[in-house]
């Protein structure tokens, strides 16, 4: 299963709407980095509105992909983390430090454009 990555102007938009197994999330990590290289995107929004569970593995891969994105010189934002997901992540002991987040897709894009356009 592949997670679609859409390009909109200088941004890549990803909405995760599938049940995440390990392989899907690892493939996504590679696909996203390749797509950044191919498109020269300046910003990435990964929307998690439809994701009802994030375990420690998925959290680690998502956190890693954000750091990898930034290594490539692109800024990424996670959006739409559901209340239940935020609660379980913290109870699990996962804080996703140094990861930029926003309430929803719209705010994610506005954070990116503020950052990129100053």
């Amino acid at each position: 299963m592949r997670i679609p990555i859409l390009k909109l102007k200088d941004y890549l938009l990803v909405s995760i709407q599938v049940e995440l197994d390990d392989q899907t999330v690892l493939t996504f990590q590679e696909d996203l980095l390749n797509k950044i290289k191919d498109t020269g995107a300046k910003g990435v929004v990964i929307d998690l509105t439809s994701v009802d569970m994030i375990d420690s593995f998925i959290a680690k891969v998502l956190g890693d992909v954000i750091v990898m994105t930034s290594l490539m010189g692109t800024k990424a934002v996670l959006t739409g983390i559901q209340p239940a997901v935020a609660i379980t992540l913290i109870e699990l002991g996962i804080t996703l430090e140094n990861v930029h987040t926003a309430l929803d897709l719209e705010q994610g894009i506005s954070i990116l454009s503020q950052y990129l356009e100053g």
Partner: protein
Amino acid sequence: MTEPIVININNEFDIVLARQKGREVSKDLQFGGVDQARITTAISELARNIYLYAGTGQITINVLEENGRRGIQISAFDEGPGISDVRMVLQDGFSTSGGLGAGLPGVKRLMDTFDIDTMPGAGTRITITKWAR
């Protein structure tokens, strides 16, 4: 009494299957959304531990009824290497997998009860429960 649901864990896709079953059962038991997320996350962590440390094992999901209360009990069983220092793996921040799993303290916090039965060389059984409120 409902029949227990047994999920054999042999590969990473079985981890997804186990948590989907957990989600179904916790929905049926009318757990709230946050508790459903806690339960599925806890199952995912235990199934991953089986896959990472023992290779294969089983997740069993049971429905509990006690004094009119209903709950879910999940048991994770493997015949892997076992754990020599249980106290250490129950400490926050301890991991032997390089940070892959959040570890057992996280699972413990997500659930109402947490029991572990393990011996080096004799496998591990972890049983967790959550009661519907």
